[in-house]
């Protein structure tokens, strides 16, 4: 059985950033990837998708954007190229087409079983991503058979959908993007809206992500936040990456003719039921946006930027009609398709180390799995900082975790030296 010091599971940007940092510290390792590098981007993303973050913001250890469109947003193919190039640049020891079937503790290390054989390692890094499996609410079981349903993983473009109305469930970034392009294709969209995070693409002339970075909001640490559990579960900001730097918020969708309804609360006798709380979730999002812009304006003023950029402004409150529909008959033929833009979750079915919480998530402290010494996780929302959710966060997270890993290995070898039975 081949032995190495670190097995990294997953050759996305996070796994590759770990690889680069391990190489810098001369830690021998392998990166196991079930497909090709950037597998999920290749296989499971829709045609028009672009990153929500501008090109300049994709910074990784040993890599920075050097193209001529720093304020643009990468397409899926460009993301694949980025990750591919990065793997080559850092000379990551990737074993492609190697699917991990089990990770289990083995003495003071781990055995990683794959469909290409087993590895023994002192340390393991889970970099398999946060978005492996679409989350579809239980109500989906009651959707009539005459309605086509799909998740974003299966969606490619409006042309693949039948003519007719579409119910898009979920109003985070994916939901608003799909609602926009599907409605524009001539298929009337009803959008079910729960709690969401409203954000303008551009504020006072600068990309919202520029503000998140410049103000230090992206660098806020997980142990500085009042409710990290809540922060890690926040839906993605309602952003789109477009050449026009468009803002697609609920008002823009309403202007297009999209019908807003509340969160899908149930399906009874073929009728979808929507919560009567649409007005409040929109109020919550508007208030939260106001607080974000207040923070930005305070920082801009204190930083002496006020004379150089556009003045502060506030955005029109989200319009909600007096009586949004509370139900929609799914048997009438009005709705041909339902798109469940209701999020993703990670898949840990192959993780045979008992470190999962009640909700099936890995218990960790900023990426360090305390209960399983030598086990680490990276590439999760707000893992260590708010920017952990972004490509831009992988570098600092990887550096921090590799530093911890190196210290752990030192401890471990000292312990082994005094307990010869373990070797």
């Amino acid at each position, binding site marked *: 059985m081949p032995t190495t010091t670190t097995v990294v599971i997953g050759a996305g940007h996070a796994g590759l950033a770990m690889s680069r940092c391990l190489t810098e510290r001369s830690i021998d390792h392998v990166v196991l990837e079930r497909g090709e590098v950037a597998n999920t981007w290749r296989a499971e993303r829709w045609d028009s998708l672009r990153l929500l973050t501008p090109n300049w913001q994709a910074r990784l250890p040993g890599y920075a954007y050097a193209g001529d469109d720093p304020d643009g947003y990468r397409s899926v193919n460009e993301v694949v190229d980025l990750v591919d190039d990065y793997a080559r640049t850092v000379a990551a020891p990737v074993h492609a087409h190697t699917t991990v079937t089990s990770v289990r503790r083995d003495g003071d290390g781990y055995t990683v079983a794959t469909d290409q054989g087993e590895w023994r390692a002192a340390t393991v890094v889970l970099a398999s991503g946060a978005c492996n499996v679409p989350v579809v609410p239980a109500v989906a079981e009651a959707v009539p058979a005459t309605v086509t349903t799909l998740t974003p993983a299966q969606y490619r473009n409006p042309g693949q959908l039948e003519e007719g109305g579409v119910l898009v469930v979920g109003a985070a970034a994916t939901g608003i993007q799909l609602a926009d392009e599907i409605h524009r294709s001539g298929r009337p969209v009803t959008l079910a809206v729960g709690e969401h995070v409203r954000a303008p693409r551009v504020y006072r002339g600068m990309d919202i992500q520029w503000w998140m970075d410049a103000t230090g909001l992206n660098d806020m640490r997980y142990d500085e936040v*009042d409710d990290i559990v809540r922060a890690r579960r926040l839906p993605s900001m309602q952003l789109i990456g477009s050449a026009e730097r468009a803002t697609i918020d609920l008002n823009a969708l309403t202007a297009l003719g999209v019908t807003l309804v509340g969160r899908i*609360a149930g399906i009874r006798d073929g009728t979808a*039921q929507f919560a009567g709380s649409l007005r409040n979730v929109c109020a919550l999002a508007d208030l939260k946006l106001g607080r974000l812009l207040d923070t930005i304006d305070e920082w801009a003023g204190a930083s002496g930027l006020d004379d150089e950029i556009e003045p502060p402004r506030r955005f029109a409150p989200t319009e909600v009609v*007096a009586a949004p529909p509370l139900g929609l008959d799914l048997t009438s033929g009005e709705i041909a398709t339902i798109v469940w833009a209701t999020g993703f979750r990670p898949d840990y079915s192959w993780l045979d180390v008992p470190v999962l919480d*009640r909700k099936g998530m890995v218990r960790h402290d900023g990426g360090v799995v305390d209960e399983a010494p030598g086990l680490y996780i990276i590439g999760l929302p707000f893992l260590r900082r708010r920017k952990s959710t972004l490509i831009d966060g992988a570098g600092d997270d990887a550096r921090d975790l590799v530093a911890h890993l190196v210290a752990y290995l030192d401890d471990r070898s000292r312990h082994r030296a005094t307990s010869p039975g373990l070797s």
Partner: protein
Amino acid sequence: MLKSINLLGFPIHVHRAVRTTKENHMSVTDTPIDNGVNVDVLLEAREALSNAPEAAQFTWRVTNTWKNGTHSESSLQQFFGLGGEQSHKTTFSYDADHPEIFASEDNGPTPVEFVLVALASCLTAGVATVAQNRGIQLNSVSATIEGDMDLRGILGADSDVRNGYSGIKVSYDIDADASPDDIKALVAQSQKRSAVYDIVTNPTNVTVEVR
């Protein structure tokens, strides 16, 4: 740090995590905010019960007895929670009836008015709790609640008309030591965490059996 707290007489061990304090809106004189809500106990309960979900299972109970016509009396004292039977300090009783314009005797509020009472009470309690948690001193809070209803629903006169409210509107007047946006945020957060708001705006399974 492990700590044992007594939540309504039910001992629960709490691992107190390190918490950073939210930004406080302290008044100029720096006197402590007091809206009469013990937020510390609620926050400890939240942590304790997330580690002991069985203790979080509550069943509220009301008994109802018909008097005459549309008049009935509901009373309550016991409820189940924190792993055992609990009791209010006294029995509470409520008459419900229909008004005289319905050719009834008006011995009490209509059932649908109790729902408005429930919604208002829940939201107002929430406003006080959120304000306490956010360090905002409330000076006065009042609300008017209106529920619109087309009677042809309950009279069975038109099957396209629902029995219940076609819409409910709640209007709050709040005087507090905070900005208008912060006050709106109190009300928004109260709805987000309100039991009755959830009951009214989302479907709930109701099973009625005859024993």
